[in-house]
């Protein structure tokens, strides 16, 4: 049984349907990615899972239990932590206080102290800057803080919304290395939403492609990387020699 099972969810912003009947699943301790362009609905999917938005239709099961109409705090308690798009750290709190908020629902002092050490080991910069206001940190440091803050809840599953957003290639690589380590060492399941298809596909094992609120492809990442359409539209690799003359009328095949 998959750890997370999403079935036919539909989510709206008022009258606007952002998610148009999506199903997918995530196996325990795996890394799964959802790729999509701007406005495809990636953020909305994650928000629906973490309970900030409620699906109008469909079900979400986490470890065999329905979570689709639970309050966000219940969902955090069950072990899903959300690292939001654009980091959303608490600007006027110190790094230390931000991390404490990540552990807001926990009471086990010893476990929290141990997890703080773990998190500092992944992101040494956070220990060095623990007294600094989060708002005064660089974008990369804030991204690290946002991930660390989510880890402080000791989640079973981490929802990552575009962790590469606005970061230099070197930093993106660094952050993705840590994401992989977290997955391997803590066995934390990772559901990763990205526009940076290259990074995501080389990190995850399984990928879904989301367009205009619908999933149009679902395959292991190595197969997606070989797929012509993915290569052209998501990885930006044009295979002119093969299709050259027909380029002008080429359409995405799944439409």
């Amino acid at each position, binding site marked *: 049984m998959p750890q997370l099972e999403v079935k036919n969810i539909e989510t709206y912003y008022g009258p606007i349907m952002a998610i148009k009947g999506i199903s997918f699943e995530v196996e325990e301790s795996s890394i799964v990615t959802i790729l999509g362009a701007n406005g495809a609905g990636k953020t909305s999917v994650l928000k629906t899972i*973490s309970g*900030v938005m409620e699906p109008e239709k469909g079900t979400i099961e986490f470890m065999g239990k329905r979570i689709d109409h639970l*309050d*966000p*705090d219940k969902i*955090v*308690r069950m072990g899903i*932590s*959300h690292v*939001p798009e654009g980091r*959303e*750290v*608490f*600007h*006027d*709190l110190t790094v230390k*206080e931000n991390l*404490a*908020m*990540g552990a*807001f*629902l926990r009471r086990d002092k010893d476990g929290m102290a141990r997890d703080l050490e773990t998190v500092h080991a992944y992101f040494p910069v956070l220990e060095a800057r623990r007294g600094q206001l989060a708002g005064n940190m660089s974008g990369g440091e804030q991204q690290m803080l946002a991930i660390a*803050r*989510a880890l402080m*809840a000791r989640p079973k599953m981490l929802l990552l919304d575009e962790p590469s957003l606005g970061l230099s290639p070197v930093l993106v690589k660094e952050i993705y290395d840590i994401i992989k380590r977290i997955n391997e060492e803590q066995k934390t399941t990772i559901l990763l939403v990205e526009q940076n298809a290259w990074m995501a596909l080389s990190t995850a094992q399984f990928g879904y492609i989301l367009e205009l609120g619908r999933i149009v492809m679902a395959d292991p990442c190595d197969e997606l990387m070989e797929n012509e359409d993915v290569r052209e539209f998501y990885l930006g690799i044009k295979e002119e020699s093969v299709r050259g003359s027909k380029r002008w009328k080429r359409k995405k095949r799944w439409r």
Partner: protein
Amino acid sequence: MLVEILQTVLSGISIGCIYGLVALGFVLIFKATEVINFAQGEMMVIGAFIAYSLITMLNLDYWLALLITILALGLFGMLLERFVLRSLIGEPVFAIVMLTIGLGYAIRSGVSMVPGWGTDTYGFHTPFTDKNLHYGDLVISWEQVSVILMTLVLIIVLFCFFRYTRMGIAMRATSQNQLAAVYMGISVNRVFSLTWTISAALGGIAGILLAPFTFVHMNMGFIGLKAFPAAVLGGFGSIPGAMVGGVIIGVTESLSGVYLPEGWKDIAAYIILILVLMLRPEGLFGIQEKKKV
């Protein structure tokens, strides 16, 4: 001469502390919910009347009465949030602000209808009534000193709460970024509830502290009109700012009451406010903070 100035300044500081406490009530609610609670002054009215009843009618000890009043107002603030304000979440902010103005009216007329309260003016004795400290020519009233000391204690308690406790930090976090707070599993409803509880309790305390100076009356809450500029002066969002703003306005008012012609006293607060806003539009302690909801 010097003695007179000192005494004037001291009485300004003590009344300024009360302005500051009321301003703090405005600021806490505004930071959390972006609503300005124009009924904040009326929390003082209720607080003063409850303390008056407990002390003069039931002959309770001042400190016990203070404690009960704090608890009663806290409970009142909590119920107000739960049963009135919460149902309005999602309505435009100005509508909620209008509601608080109506609430202020309702509380004043409610108070005037309570048997034994009504529209008369009352007073009660505190452990500090008619006690003075003498330093040569300087006579300092304990009543004023006690206000300053109690305000200091309160500020320290609040400071520690917001700095060191889990819920206090969560309240700051929620006021900075509500959505992120939800992602942490912080219940925004609980934060709002606690905010109203604390603000109402602060109003109650301010009412008790003010009573020896202005007596207990259904209109004593209009002091909120002075506390509001104090909050703006401090940057409307900063806790120390609210206190400093309150003290500045208290002292200016008290000095202009003694050294300037009649009438200046009442507009002094606003003149200071306008001057400061011309020089520093964001207020003394204000920072242009980005707020994400």
